[in-house]
């Protein structure tokens, strides 16, 4: 299955600033998914990133707050903009496994906003 490199693994940021998270996949994939996992909570899908088109955002998430780039079939970035303490979460990227129905996840970016 695909291997995902996600960075940074963690960061502490000042409120009002922005952080860009990168995900690199070792194989070409059509769709990449970005999730948020708030402390003690499960995963919530933020958006689906397709190469060559705008990302599709889930209810409650907007492009101005979470702009996504997908310049090619192996790479994507998620930016968390104008951060507030409520954005403190783990952010994860994911791709569908080439083995079938399962999904492979990056190791996550633990973001703390102070």
């Amino acid at each position, binding site marked *: 299955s695909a291997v*995902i490199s*996600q960075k940074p*693994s963690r960061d502490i940021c000042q409120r009002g600033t922005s952080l860009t998270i990168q995900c690199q996949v070792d194989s070409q994939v059509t*769709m990449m*998914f970005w999730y948020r996992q708030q402390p003690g*909570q*499960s*995963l*919530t*899908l933020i958006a*689906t990133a397709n190469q060559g088109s705008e990302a599709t955002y*889930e209810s409650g998430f907007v492009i101005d707050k979470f702009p996504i780039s997908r310049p090619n079939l192996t790479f994507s970035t998620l930016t968390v903009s104008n951060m507030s303490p409520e954005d403190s979460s783990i952010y*994860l990227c*994911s791709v*569908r*496994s080439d083995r*079938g*129905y*399962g*999904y*492979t*996840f*990056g*190791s*996550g970016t*633990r973001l703390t906003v102070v």
Partner: protein
Amino acid sequence: TQLLEQSPQFLSIQEGENLTVYCNSSSVFSSLQWYRQEPGEGPVLLVTVVTGGEVKKLKRLTFQFGDARKDSSLHITAAQPGDTGLYLCAGVKRGGSEKLVFGKGTKLTVNP
């Protein structure tokens, strides 16, 4: 409203005990998956069930998909401290997109 209801939310047991985690929904899923997540890591896929009534075994772990494809269970026999982690069920809704919907997770602690 949570699409996938997972129970229990927390479970603390002694080594050697058996346990079952449940994942229930009113919706039909084309597949249900179970993941295990350890601190500082992303979820790792344990199994995918696709056919109603399907049972899959992974060493001491037994996974079952309900006949109506609305629910699933994970049973662990003779739990070990290495089984400690967050267990997540996730599903792809039938007739929907490829979006994966997650339950809230079960945080399992196995004490030696």
